[in-house]
């Protein structure tokens, strides 16, 4: 554990769920937590008061709140559900298929990956469109640009599909198992993290694919910052941050974000970009949560954390920066969920 500072004040509030958190979402002033045994909880982000809870059979893998926080999609190995927080209604969405990812396009539509399909629903849970079968279970997908296309990660490449009857489908091929997907806000760059320990970088408007290799293990987390300039990914003991300015990261080296204490070989638990600034919060499995500013780093050289550091009591499973950039919500393996307020101007 490291040196808690006065720049981040921990424990504005804390709540506990009975199972290990799998995912954490934030919308409409509410924090949403999904637990591995099927506990879903919605709490007021300001007070920590519970505003809704659910329990589903078979566990949960993800949770996706709507923009206003009134609804959330619960995704699990044995099914997916649309949960209306006020009133507690739960609508089953797509049978018993494995579902680990769901994403809202806007208040009216959302998509979820169920087994080898992607489906789009309206806000009431009515099916609007279902894809053709993909080559394997869809591991991730991303809405592109104006929500008229989806980038879908499945074995063999990224499929660009228009989710409407008769819509086009284009494959950007990569012969491998894709685990995670991220796209820039303008939809120009699409990046996959892969089982073969590479990053594959695609241009959605050109037949271009770049490969970043040399990682020691598979890459299962990728995330662009809000501007689309920086990409963060795992796959190494450090978080790698690539700069996509101009022609992209080809020929460059990433900035590496290192834990504060390497003696126990801490692994990356989760990371989250600041909503508007080039800052990233990283939670490690030794409990450390650190804030980094990648622009301070020299490419190819490790970058230590800013002073804003706080220590959790157990492994950090998920974290999410608040929409105002002044708080970070942290979910630990013990089931503890807490809000940490950033009180230094430098980071906030």
């Amino acid at each position, binding site marked *: 554990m490291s040196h808690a500072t006065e720049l981040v004040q921990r424990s504005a509030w804390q709540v506990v769920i009975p*199972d*290990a958190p*799998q995912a954490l979402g934030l919308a409409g002033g509410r924090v949403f937590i999904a637990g*591995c*045994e099927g506990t879903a909880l919605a709490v007021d982000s300001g007070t920590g008061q519970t505003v809704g809870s659910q329990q589903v059979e078979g*566990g949960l*893998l993800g949770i996706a709140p709507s923009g206003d926080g009134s609804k959330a999609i619960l995704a699990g*190995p*044995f099914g997916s559900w649309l949960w209306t927080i006020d009133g507690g209604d739960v609508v089953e969405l797509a049978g*018993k298929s*494995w579902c*680990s990812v769901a994403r809202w396009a806007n208040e009216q539509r959302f998509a979820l990956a169920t*087994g*080898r399909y992607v489906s789009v629903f309206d806000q009431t849970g009515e099916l609007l469109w279902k894809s053709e079968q993909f080559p*394997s*279970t869809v*591991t991730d997908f991303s809405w592109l640009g104006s929500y008229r296309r989806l980038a879908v990660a499945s*074995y063999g490449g990224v499929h660009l599909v228009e989710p409407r009857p008769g819509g086009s489908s284009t494959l950007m091929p990569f*012969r*491998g*198992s894709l685990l995670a997907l991220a796209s820039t806000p303008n939809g120009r760059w699409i990046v996959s993290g892969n*089982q*073969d320990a590479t990053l594959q970088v695609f241009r959605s408007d050109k037949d271009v694919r770049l490969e970043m290799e040399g990682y020691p*293990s*598979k890459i299962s987390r990728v995330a662009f910052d809000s501007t689309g300039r920086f990409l963060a990914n795992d796959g190494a003991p450090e978080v790698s941050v690539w700069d996509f300015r101009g022609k992209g990261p080809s020929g460059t080296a990433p900035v590496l974000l290192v834990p504060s204490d390497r003696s126990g070989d801490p692994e990356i638990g989760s990371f989250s970009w600041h909503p508007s600034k080039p800052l990233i919060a990283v939670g490690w499995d030794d409990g450390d949560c650190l804030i980094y500013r990648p622009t301070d780093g020299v490419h190819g050289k490790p970058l230590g954390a800013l002073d804003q550091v706080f220590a959790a009591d157990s492994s950090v499973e998920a974290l999410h920066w608040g929409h105002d950039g002044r708080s970070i919500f942290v979910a630990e393996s013990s089931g503890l969920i807490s809000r940490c307020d950033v009180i230094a101007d430098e980071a906030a």
Partner: protein
Amino acid sequence: MSFSTEDAATEADRALAMDDRIPVTVLTGFLGSGKTTLLNRVLKEEHGMRIAVIENEFGEIGIDDALIIDSEEEIFEMNNGCICCTVRGDLIRILGELVKRRDKFDRIIIETTGLADPAPVAQTFFVDDEIRSTCRLDAIVTVVDACHALVHLDEVKPVGVENESVEQIAFADRVILNKADLVHEHELEKVEARIRSINHSVQIIRARFADAPLSEILDVGAFDLDRVLEGDPAFLVDTDHQHDLTVTSVGIECEGSLDEERWTLWLRTLLATKGVDIFRSKGILSIDGTDRRVVFQAVHMLLDSDVGKEWGEQARVNRLVFIGRNLDRDELEAGFRSCLVTMAVA
């Protein structure tokens, strides 16, 4: 420091007991062999263990009383250009999910379809670091119907089509010879001989209504070669040479130490060029200049090795076995022996 055999076995057992990774049993078998009956028995027997089952077929009869997760048999080729290196993407995903809930169960059984090639299941445990650090492949158990085994094993397939029942025997650490009560003793012996001609080191357990002792199926530690060899030093080495079979096993036993560089080059070259035909290989080796055994396991081309126990005062005897198709015993032996360190003659 040295160990008696008994001490060493105890040490290996202790090491296994201290290994807190989740043990995983791969259950395979011919269609109609009684695989699901065995699974239901394992689930119902009062052993106090909580078991999660991953299955990718609808069983012959329903499976009761378990956390059962359907998989989709998503077989992926690895990006190394070798067609024999395939893994199961669905298993990686499901195991990754299960380990997060590990306080809810003690072990995992993966039930494969009656016609499935076990290699992609086993290889999944070789290629994913996260799985290797949280799960331990305990054994591959194959259920065989004693009445119909020879028919399945001797079935001639069209050119290019694998006889998967032969592969299931080749990959097995344990064969449950089920419905043994329905077959005469001499027939059973013929079936056992045929099984051993494919995989001489496999342990065969006769059963009726799949009533094999659970201790022979669970916590076998078959992938812990140190442990296996303490119990049966001749485990990897056969005496009955078979040259007339397409799929067979070649055991090599020889005293001495290996030049690490030569051995590594030879094995990697062998698996790179013949990995498609070599289903499984495993062994315990004496490497020149090291005090500890080196243990290796490979499924087709994918290889894993680790440092085992100290040799102590025991004779440094290399023991290894190759199981596969069209194996040339003389070539394998000669290749292996060329890696041995030879003493310079003054």
